[in-house]
Structures are given as structure tokens and as C-alpha cells.
């Protein structure tokens, strides 16, 4: 096999002018992390709302929640990315549409929105499952104490439900983190995109992808460690 390994490549200056190949990958890592965190804010908030809607007694709320989840779960993420990036600006009023298209960092904002809405559907299912897993007595006790439905959810049901679903929420967060790489198709310079352009510039395929792989694995480990800490922090004392 003729492949010239060159692990020193990371310290060589990248053709972009400023910094080394290592800097290039690290800037990609930063975009990956920032995109994942920003989209998670949307996913978590919206997902909680939709998840709660699916547990309400109201039929309308249920139907809207179900439609949301089915819609976002049954279309590939890449297609959704294209819809947000190429189709949405065309459907907006002309002036607003062109303003959106000319926005600097448009791929970033699009990726955040797209991932946020996409992951929200998955978070919603987890939230719903968490609330469903609670004994019915909890809601009844809350209401019997004179709390309103909103108060019962906020003070009783959700805090307990989130504790139950912390492990699956962690996997959703990890999926969200990995899914940021799909945004390279709309020009977001995240970690995978950076590894690919490093390969194109330097022809050191395996070094570039190995570095990206290790960075992703490290990110995963950090998230899992964080989730374990959080789990311990929020555990009910004396509980299981």
C-alpha cells in the first residue's frame, strides 16, 4: 500500500492564509459545538411544549402535537436542511426572502433552526413518554392541592418526567451533535466539513479523518460525563 503518512501535517500552515491545519479543525469543532448547543435550546424548549401538548386532555392540542412529530420524523434531515435553506426564502415575501439569503452566516442560522425543529420532534416523544411513565396519582394530587394544570406540569410532572428521561435525552443531544455534520451540505464549516477540506488541500486523508474522529469521540465522552454528573445532581435524595 503506497500511502505517505505525515502526522506533522497538523502543524503546517493551511492554505487559507491564517493558522495551521490544526487551527482549521479546531475552528470546525467550535462551529459544531456552537451549532449543537444553539439548536438544542430550540429542540428542548419546543420539544417540551409539543411533548406536553401530546399529554393534555385536549384533542386539538394532541392532534397538533402528533402532526408536528410525524411531519418532522418522516422527512430525512438532509431534505429538511434543503427546505429551510433553499425553499423557505423563496416562499417568503420577496424582500424578506432576499434579505435572508444575503445574511452573513446564513448556513449557521439555517442549521440551528433546522436541527432545532428536527430534534424537537424527538425530544417531544421523550417528554411525552416521561410524563406518561409517571403514576396518574401525581397529576391528581397536584390538582387536588389546588394547583392549576399549568402549575401541576411546571411544579410536579415535568421535574419528575425530566429526571426519568435524562438518559434518552442525552442520546438525543448526542444525535443532535452528530447531525450538525449534515449542515456541511449547505456550507456550514463544521468539523466534518473542515476535515474534508483539509483532505482536499493536503491529500492527507487518513490523518484528517482520524483527527476528526478523535474529536467527535472526545465530544461524546465529555457529554456523557456531563450527563452522568447532572443525573447525580438532580437525583431525588433517597430515591433509587
Amino acid at each position, binding site marked *: *500500500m503506497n500511502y505517505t503518512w505525515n502526522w506533522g501535517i497538523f502543524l503546517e500552515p493551511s492554505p487559507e492564509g491564517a493558522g495551521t491545519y490544526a487551527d482549521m479543525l479546531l475552528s470546525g469543532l467550535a462551529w459544531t459545538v456552537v451549532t449543537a448547543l444553539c439548536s438544542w435550546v430550540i429542540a428542548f424548549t419546543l420539544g417540551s411544549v409539543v411533548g406536553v401538548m401530546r399529554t393534555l386532555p385536549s384533542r386539538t392540542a394532541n392532534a397538533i402535537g402528533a402532526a408536528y412529530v410525524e411531519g418532522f420524523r418522516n422527512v430525512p434531515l438532509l*431534505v429538511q436542511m434543503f427546505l429551510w435553506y*433553499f425553499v423557505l426564502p423563496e416562499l417568503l*415575501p420577496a424582500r424578506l426572502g432576499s434579505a435572508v439569503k444575503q445574511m452573513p452566516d446564513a448556513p449557521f442560522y439555517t442549521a440551528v433552526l433546522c436541527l432545532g425543529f428536527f430534534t424537537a420532534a424527538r425530544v417531544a416523544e421523550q417528554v411525552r413518554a416521561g410524563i406518561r411513565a409517571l403514576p396518574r396519582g401525581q397529576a391528581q394530587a397536584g390538582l387536588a392541592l389546588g394547583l392549576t394544570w399549568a402549575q401541576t406540569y411546571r411544579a410536579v410532572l415535568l421535574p419528575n418526567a425530566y429526571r426519568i428521561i435524562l438518559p434518552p435525552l442525552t442520546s438525543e443531544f448526542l444525535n443532535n451533535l452528530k*447531525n450538525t*455534520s449534515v449542515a456541511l451540505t449547505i456550507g456550514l464549516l463544521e468539523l466534518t466539513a473542515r476535515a*474534508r477540506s483539509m483532505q482536499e488541500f493536503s491529500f492527507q486523508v*487518513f490523518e484528517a479523518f482520524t483527527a476528526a474522529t478523535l474529536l467527535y469521540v472526545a465530544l461524546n465522552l465529555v457529554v456523557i460525563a456531563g450527563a452522568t454528573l447532572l443525573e447525580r445532581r438532580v437525583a431525588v435524595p433517597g430515591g433509587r
Partner: protein
Amino acid sequence: MFGHFDLSVVADSLPYLFGEGMVFTLTLTALAAGGGLVLGTGLALLRLSGVPGLTHAAKLYVELMRSLPLVLVIFWFYFLVPYLGAWAIGADTPIRVGAFASALVTFTLFEAAYFSEIVRAGIQSIPKGQSAAARALGMSYAQVMRLVVLPQAFRNMVPLLLTQTIVLFQDTSLVYVLSLTDFLGAASKVAQRDGRLVEMYLFAALVYFAVCFAASLLVRRLQARTAIVR
């Protein structure tokens, strides 16, 4: 805002979209799901084998695959497969591997990691007493798996395996990064040739939705039917 909507672009490209694109997507999905299931079962058996080296190797493989984004894995194999092929047949230079073969290898190996977790959970869902009883009857480990555990485990796993196959069907759209002509690739090529992004991408989304939604309804029905058995 839908004033200059041109549906004739969609209509004209239907044979291309379905005859080439969808056929590609379905072929890749079916082959990768089949291969992934076989490999995934192997991985799950390794992981449950109790032999320390094998268990850890299988676990490492599954965890590594699951911590990487699919797009990165696609790139990895796109560049790696020619070298692996050269190494396998002892050639000096990387062999030529088509993008389809590379995508097939990628999806098979990637899905194997996910399928193996489903199979592992399925095997573990069969009460221990059953394999103990089978061993007591004098069956070998292979016989216990083949005759007692796996047939029941697969039955329990079918809904999850199908759901994962729907996910795989959606994920095959990522071969876009290799410029392959799957369903989305075909839609995208027409969209860019004719400057009809809105129509083509909306249509693609609609078709994916219809296929996946119908499939997930079927899975749910199947789930309701097999659930009673236990």
C-alpha cells in the same frame, strides 16, 4: 407566493426520479439492511459471548460507530475502501471502487452497529431460563441460539428493526455528499439544472414523508399484533 409554481418540472422528471433515483435508494436500503442485520447479529452474539477479547472488540466497534456522524463515516469509507481492497488482493495501488460499492459498504457497516444493539436487547429479552433449559437438554451454544433464543428474539425485534430500516431509508439521502443519484440526488440534479429548487425539494419531501409515514403506520400495526402474543 405560489404564483410561479411549475409542476410540469416535477411531472417531466418523474421517470428519472423514480426509475433511477428511487430504485437506487430502495436497492441501497434493502442491501444495507440485509447486510447490516447479518453483521449486527454477529456483533451482538460476539458481545454476549462472554469471551473478553471478542466482547470488548465488538463493544468498541459499536461505540465508535455510534459516536461518529454518518457523513464522516461516509467520507471515511469513500477513501478507505480502495486502500482496503488493494490490501485485500495484494495490489500496490488503491483499487477503483465505485461510489455505489463504497456507499453500500458504509451503510452496511454503519447500520450493523445500530442493528446489533437492537438484536442484543432482543436476545436479552428472552428469559435466561430458556437457554438454561436448552443447555440442560444437551444442546450446544450454537443450537441454543439457533433453535431457541434467536427465533423468539427476532420476533420481538421485528418492529424495532423495521423502524431502524425506515431511519436507514431516510439516511441513504446522505449519499448526496458523494454526488450519487439516489432519490434526493435525482431531485437535486433536476432542481439545479432547471432552477426549480422549490418545486423539486418540496416534492422530494412529500414523497419521503408518504413512504415513511405509511411504513411507520404498518410497523405500529404489526407492533400491536405481536404485542398480544407475549
